[in-house]
Structure formats: C-alpha cells, structure tokens
C-alpha cells in the first residue's frame, strides 16, 4: 500500500468537507474492494475518509411502502434484518450470498452500489426493484444511476446516504458464481409489481448491470419460466474471458432468469 492520510469524520457534512480538502481522496466504506486494490498498489488515494464512525448511516427502516437501508449497512445486516426478510426476502437472500461470511461482515451496500462493479450483486437488485439512491445532495432513480461499468451518476463530493427499495409483489435473485472468485458470472434479479416486470442482469455485460428488455416483455406477457424459453439473449457486448465466453454467459442469462422466475413464484 502507498501511504495515505486517514480521516474518520463523524458527520456526512464533515465527510464532504474532508473530500474537498484532498485531491484524490477516497471514501472507505467496507473496504472489501478498495483495500485489496490498494494492497496491490493499483490505487493511490491521497486520503481515506472512513465512514465507519459517521452517525446515522446504518439504519434499516420501513418507510411507507419502502424499505430504506443506510449506506453503511453491512451485507450481513441486510441479510439478517427481519424487516428486509419479511418485506423483500429476495434482497435479504442476495445480501446473504455476497462474498463470504467474513466479507459480509465488512462490506456495505453503499460501497457496493457506488463502486458499480460489473460483477457486483447489489446493482441488480437496485435496478430491478426500481430503487432510489439517496445522497447528501439529491435522490437518483436507479435507472439514471448506473452508467456503465464502474461509472455512476455520483458527482465529486457526493455521498450515498441510503437506498430506498419499493416492496415488490414477487422477486428473486439467482446467480451463477464465477468458480474462482465467486463474483457473479451472471446474476439475474427478477421483480414483479402489478403488471410491471423488471429483469436486471449483472456480471454478464461489458457495460455493467443492465435491464434485459426482451426478457421483461416476455415475462410481462406471462410471468412464467416457460415464457423465457423463446427469448434470444443478445450477447454481443457480453464479457468473454477464460471463465466463460459471451455465448455461454448469454445462455446463463436465460437459465438464471428462468430459475429466478421459478423462485419468485415460490416454486
């Protein structure tokens, strides 16, 4: 690791001001991606602003028809939250499948969403559930938030404070983990609310998380795993690497969608 300055502010306002003071400062949320990168000397932030002691970022609450999760809620907290398990069990299950138990005890939802790793799990849920990302400055709809791999609508000095998830009627997440890293090689989050169906796919595309519109149309017509069968998945911009070519990933998108629909139907 290269040397850096370390700051541990107590309020979001202090975080913002600390970010303003250091060029190349990075926010340290759970650190489960950032710290390994820094250990390899592949990142050299001048300062780390540790959110660990900022008040009010860890709450998980029910607000109206939404579940609102603080940015610093750990994956393990979301996975075991009675509130989340009751209202959006698919989200709790997703959180319970990120990384491994020790990683889940450090990693945070805000960190994952802000990073927008193309293989991360949370972005699929945020997009498929039509969540709203709340920052210290504004509210951003999921559809506007993710802008290609590792790119989001967040501006300099903007900090995610919480994420608000509308409660779906039915939803499920199924992922196919990369055999080595266990990141999602393909992860599909399917949600249904009234006539609306959303299918968000992570892990597959060079563009990061995306909505699979062809699959959505088929599932809107009939919310049934069989409906997925005739739908071609366009893999032309999919990731192709030693673990899986684009066409294999395209197949996995179909299979995981089918399984997610089956799971969402409680079968």
């Amino acid at each position, binding site marked *: *690791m*290269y*040397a*850096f*300055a*370390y700051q*541990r502010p107590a309020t979001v306002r202090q975080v913002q001001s600390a970010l303003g003071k250091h060029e190349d400062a990075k926010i*340290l949320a759970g*650190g*489960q991606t950032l*710290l*390994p990168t*820094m*250990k*390899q000397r592949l990142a050299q932030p001048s300062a*780390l602003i*540790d959110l*660990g002691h900022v008040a009010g970022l860890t709450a998980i609450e029910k607000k109206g028809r939404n579940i609102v999760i603080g940015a610093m809620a750990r994956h*393990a907290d979301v996975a075991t939250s009675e509130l989340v398990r009751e209202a959006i069990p698919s989200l709790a299950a997703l959180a319970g499948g990120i*990384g*491994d*138990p*020790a*990683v889940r*005890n*450090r990693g945070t939802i805000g960190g994952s969403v802000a990073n927008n790793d193309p293989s991360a799990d949370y972005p699929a849920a945020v997009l498929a559930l039509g969540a709203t990302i709340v920052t210290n400055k504004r509210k951003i709809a999921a559809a506007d938030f993710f802008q290609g791999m590792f790119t989001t609508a967040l501006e300099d000095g903007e900090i995610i404070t919480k994420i608000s998830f509308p409660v779906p009627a039915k939803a499920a997440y199924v992922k196919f983990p990369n055999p080595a*890293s*266990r990141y999602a090689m393909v992860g599909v989050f399917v949600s249904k609310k009234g006539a609306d169906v959303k299918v968000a796919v992570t892990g597959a595309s060079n563009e990061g998380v995306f909505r699979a519109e062809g699959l959505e149309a088929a599932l809107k017509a009939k919310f049934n795993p069989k409906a997925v069968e005739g739908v071609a998945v366009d893999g032309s911009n999919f990731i192709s690497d030693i673990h899986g070519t684009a066409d294999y990933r395209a197949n996995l998108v179909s299979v995981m969608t089918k399984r997610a629909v089956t799971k969402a139907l409680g079968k």
Partner: protein
Amino acid sequence: MISVSMTVNGKAVSAKIDPRTLLVQFLRENLLLTGTHVGCDTSQCGACVVHVDGKAIKSCTTLAASCDGTSVVTIEGLAHDGVLHPMQEAFRENHGLQCGFCTPGMIMSAIDIVNRKGHDLDEHTIREELEGNICRCTGYHNIVKSVAAGAHAMAGSK
C-alpha cells in the same frame, strides 16, 4: 502516524501506527500475535480471520485504524487457563488440520458459524459457510467433521 486503541484478547492495547497498517499487520508485527496468518492478497483464503466485536472479519482487508475502539479476539485468545476452546479441541480430535497454516482462520470462522447458525449444523451448511476459508491439505473432509463436532461441544460448554 495515528493513534489506535483497542482491546485484543481481553487486554487493552494502544499504539501509534502508520495509517496504512492493516489489522493483521498490527496483530502480527506490533503485538507479535503471529497465529493470525496471511495466505493471499485478495481476501479469499481466510487465514487471517479474527473476530472484531464478536464478528468474523478478514484482518488482511481491514485497517487497524478502522478497528479503533473495538474488541478483537484472535486464535491466541480462545483458550483460557490452559483449557482449549471446544472448537480447538474438535479440530484436534477430528484431525481437522495438517500443516496448520489455515487452521487459526478456520477455527475463528467456525466459531462465527456457530454463533450465527447454532449448534446443529449439517454438512451442506458447514461447507457453504466455509466459502471464505481455503485449505490445501485436508480436502475439507475432516474440517467439516470438526466444525460439526465443535458446534455440538460449544452447546455443551455453555
């Protein structure tokens, strides 16, 4: 340099450290608690697992500075007055280790599994919950047996 204070294995410690000091470095180099190991660079092998405020974390992927004010337990803090923790005993009784390098992390993770999942653990659950700990010697067969036995023994020792 920044100051950190924490409780490690029941003892208060404080030190001035470079901010880039990882918790595992702080334990191994500052406190000479070398039972916590480093086996990879990408936080996957789990040789470095310790408990911070009662939860298993990877000490190679956590800054010591972030642990200011916490209570840390390492493999050296499990046995009391020469009496092994039931999970340590279970690993010995079931031959759950060979070279011993991954063992401290395995035992710390195993105790965490019991804390979260209870004392009656089936094989499938144990195998899934050990996702973050890699062993190259045992083929996991005896580790799985050890964790199940240790979980039962922990119920008895309460």
